[in-house]
């Protein structure tokens, strides 16, 4: 299977969009200073990567999608949710420690 020859147009559009979204997230994660924004940027990266996996499931119009990448996306979402929760908890704790109160 070759990326540019056999992949239908929809796949290419989705794939490029995924790479673009991933790139925007990457740029944000590297350039932003605010912790919360960086978490959001990383979430964007996660969305971009999920896009690529969804493209990998696409087999063409009228055909059933490959279920394996879908399973991977779901796993990825679960992992990202937990990671985001940990990051947000950390940010909140740092915030309260910096401001000298315990909330």
């Amino acid at each position: 299977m070759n990326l540019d020859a056999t992949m239908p147009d929809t796949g290419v559009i989705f794939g490029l969009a995924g790479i673009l979204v991933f790139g925007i997230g990457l740029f944000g994660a590297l350039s932003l200073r605010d912790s919360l924004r960086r978490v959001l940027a990383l979430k964007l990266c996660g969305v971009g990567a999920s896009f690529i996996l969804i493209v990998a499931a696409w087999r063409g119009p009228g055909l059933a999608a490959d279920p394996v990448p879908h399973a991977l996306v779901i796993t990825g979402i679960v992992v990202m949710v937990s990671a985001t929760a940990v990051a947000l908890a950390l940010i909140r704790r740092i915030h309260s420690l910096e401001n000298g109160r315990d909330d």
Partner: protein
Amino acid sequence: MTEIVSLDWLALTVFVPLLGAVLSFLVPRIAPQIGLMTLALAGLCVTMLALQVIPGGPVIVALGGWGAPLGLDLRADGLAIIMLGMNVLVGGFVSLGALDTFSARHAGEESARMRRYFWPLWLLLLCGLNGAYLSTDIFNLYVMIEVIALAAIGLTVLTGRLDAMRAGLEYMFASMLGALLFLMAVGLAYLQAGRLDFAGLAVHAGEPAMMLAFALMLVGLALKTALFPLHFWLPNAHASASAPASALLSGLVLKASLYILLRFWVEIFGPGERIGMLVGAMGTGAIIWGSVQALRTQRLKLLVAWSTVAQIGLICVAFALAGTIGAQTAWQGAVLLMVAHAVAKAAMFLAAGRIAQETGHDRIADLDRSHLRPTLAQFAFALAAISLIGLPPSAGFAGKWLLMEGAMRAGAWIWVVVAMAGTLFSVAYLSRPLIGFLRFDRAPDPVGEHHGWAIADAPPLMLAVIAVISGLVAVQIIGVISIGAPFGAVP
């Protein structure tokens, strides 16, 4: 050679720590007992697995009876056995050390929280580490590195202090980014190959999309391994954690991503010499920059953490020799160095923690002004330094020797020079604290007031002794590594 069994020691090696983590979280009152019991059981699993693999060759388990490509295969070869053995050996001693660090005699809310959460996090970490060493497909590895990362971040911020929290957040960002780059690469690889297992991907090695996937994985894993210049998160995270946590983070956690990179390099992608040179150059940068920072820092724990950056760089020199005639020897040296560093660095962090606990500070400049000398901890630190520097008969010596032999066989003298320079640097920065330990003329009060040897001195000392004498069994270790020929057949 290969046998397929439904459920046995191999699967238990991963699931026993997971069960232990859940139990120790549910019943915090007896968490330390559960922790030690889990470590003992995990040790048993690894031993039984080793007894299967060493005479019989690699063992493969298809979880739930679903084999590759759809299901997940777990595979144990000699290399995996060595890494698993490293996990339970280092982990077991660090657990004993943690018994004292987080014991109930330290009063206070913080201590109670640390006591409560250390064991679930550490056992979860062990589950992830063992899983990573046994995985044979890239998505399973993605999940495992996330499990490792989340548990490791929990251990980093366990003290609850602001500096540890900030370092932990920085670690979190680096780790998340690394994992996402990895996930992106998984997507690209699946798009190209339609498979996720190593063997299925190896068929497609060299195709452009696969090379892009490998580049993403390389950056992601380098970020997680803290390979220069992506090491920025490591020193603060490792230095601000509690001593047992630092020992686990520096000794075991970094090795997992390094191991994954090594597996990918050898079993799937086989990228050309140029990328090997790049990684070797990054390793060289790590040796120089890590050593310079270790020479400059004022704090003992930071010195030990910067030394980790330099040592990881040294191990990565092996990648520069991939594809040459000395590659196999260099890989073996790299694996030995990984194990040697795990044992010695865990000993060193535990010893540094003991020294800080006894003297009340960890300023390198004031070590020689103290009238308190935690002798055993200092002795353990010195022994660990012997292995890190690479003096015989330590495992560090054997690993470095093999690495240099590989470089010499390949005629790549530059890497011999790099390894030598790394050795000289490590002598320089590690002698800073050693001089402090051994100088007595600047102490204002008479030295000799002895606070007694605590049981907490035993784990670092034992680990350091193992680090020094394990070079004597280096030949046997290499024999085990070669089972299943992870680095190709003997030339």
